[in-house]
């Protein structure tokens, strides 16, 4: 029965206003949530468990403030919640993050890992494939469907449509929304989550070689031209060719 790990990350609510103060974003006032794509990963992991048995452990990297999203994952239905952290870590680069997560996954004895296709903060999408490489596992990214009929068969978009891919052996699978309806926590789950203990583990983080220089607001866009009435579409079409040069 598979030992399943799902990676989750704490991010600002996607509707949050992002404020820059000095040369860093100021996240002191934002509401923190599980990164939305990670919810699809949790749902997929739970469906895998329902089909094949085993257990689902939610794993995050972060300081104690991340315990809340682990408890949210517990309320949705994962079995165990684990946080990997060392107070000396700050602004780890992608290689360090992936290395730390890979060590924790190895120590948990996982056979399959699910994660969101990207986190809502960086949007990079590097963690799934990067962790897979650190583990020496295969990976499939951005899946929009998963079936568990003895093995794992996933659907992943390709240039010409979508590929049906069968996964054998250990793998990291990153999840997009697809047609998933994610389950919401029920009262029993919320009560269990309140009492749940977060296991805190640590790992060795390699030295980061990418350092943050600054975070800034997006460049302001100069005011555009505004027209009244549908007939102005003719003028706009002309400008798209003659001024913007895009058609």
């Amino acid at each position, binding site marked *: 029965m598979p030992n399943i790990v799902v990676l989750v990350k704490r991010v600002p609510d*996607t*509707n949050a206003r*992002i404020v*820059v103060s000095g040369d860093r974003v100021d996240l002191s006032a934002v509401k923190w949530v599980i990164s*939305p*794509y990670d919810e699809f990963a949790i749902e997929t992991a739970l469906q895998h468990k329902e089909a094949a048995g085993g257990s689902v452990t939610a794993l995050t990297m972060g300081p104690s403030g991340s315990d809340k999203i682990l408890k949210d994952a517990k309320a949705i239905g994962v079995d165990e919640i684990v946080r990997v952290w060392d107070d000396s870590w700050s602004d780890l680069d*992608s*290689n360090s993050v*992936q290395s730390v997560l890979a060590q924790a996954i190895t120590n948990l004895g996982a056979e399959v890992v699910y994660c969101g296709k990207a986190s*809502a*903060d*960086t949007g990079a*999408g*590097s*963690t*799934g*494939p*990067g*962790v*897979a*490489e650190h583990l020496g596992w*295969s*990976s*499939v990214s*951005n899946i*929009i469907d998963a079936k568990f009929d003895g093995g794992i*068969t996933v*659907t992943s*978009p*390709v*240039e*010409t*449509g979508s*590929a*049906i*891919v*069968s996964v054998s052996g250990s793998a990291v699978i990153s999840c*997009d*929304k697809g047609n998933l309806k994610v389950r919401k926590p029920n009262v029993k789950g919320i009560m269990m989550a309140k009492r749940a203990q977060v296991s805190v583990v640590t790992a060795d983080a*390699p030295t980061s*070689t*990418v350092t943050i220089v*600054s*975070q*800034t607001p*997006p460049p302001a*866009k100069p005011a*555009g*031209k*505004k027209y009244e*009435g*549908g007939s102005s*579409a*003719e003028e*706009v*079409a*002309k*400008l798209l060719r003659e001024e913007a040069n*895009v*058609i």
Partner: protein
Amino acid sequence: MSDSIIIAETSKGSIAPVTAELVSAAIALGTSPTVIVPCTDAAMADGAGYEGASRTIAVKGACFENYDASSWAAAIDAAAPSGIIIAAATPQSKDVAARIAARRGLSIVQDVVAIDGMNLTSPIYSGKAMQTVALSGDAAVSVRANIFPAANSSAANVSVVDQSGDVGTAVQEIIARASARLDVSEANIIISGGRGMGTPENFSHLEKIADVLGAAVGASRAAVDTWESIPHSMQVGQTGKTVNPNLYIAVGISGAIQHLAGMRSSKYIVAVNKDADAPIFAHADYGIVATWEETLPVLESALASMMS
């Protein structure tokens, strides 16, 4: 000048135009690039010669028949020299670049939109802020399209390396997309509709304009959440796709922060909305305050006569 490696972007059996932009990005990083072409037929690499690129390596292998991240990364890694790795910020290339970086113990900086020496800038929080990072050594970098100028083509100096990679996943079948229309993540022009379109059937009016322009049709989260027949694959925004086409036309979309996050970096934005105070207008190069019913027929016929 230090070396860099460009992973050529391929599309339907040929080299995608963004590859020429990666050459300019490599030069902006002060590097001399080698262009790597993953392929099953080395002839494909003949189209991957650029002014400013030192050489082209066709990495030929059966594993490149279908996309499998682990075997692609292994085969490209084995054939590529050391240096900064540069790829296009497309879903597949971001994925394979992340694996190659991890394989070499390097970090990766995704979705780069500006390069200043070794300082790289990418959007974070879906474009609600920008982050600049400094590289202190080799790394992998993915670069967004439509940012850097395309390098001029030149005759390719191609060497061929045969590689095999152990394929970790097996593609059972490819289901072709029902519609011939482009996906929003691939298109240079996108026309999107929001809940202001009234009904999902009215998206046919957007499709007609998309057909004239060779554009993709997108949708806001509100539209996707409201109407079952508008699939999530069309959703542009923070929990959908982040796009930066040359032209983005938003119709009946008010411009929630969620949606803006996914499309604000588009080169030109046209907004059609009957509410003059809709937030989308603050981001539009060309705003039309009118209903879609009175605007789209005029737009369609103007564009059709222009494109014919």
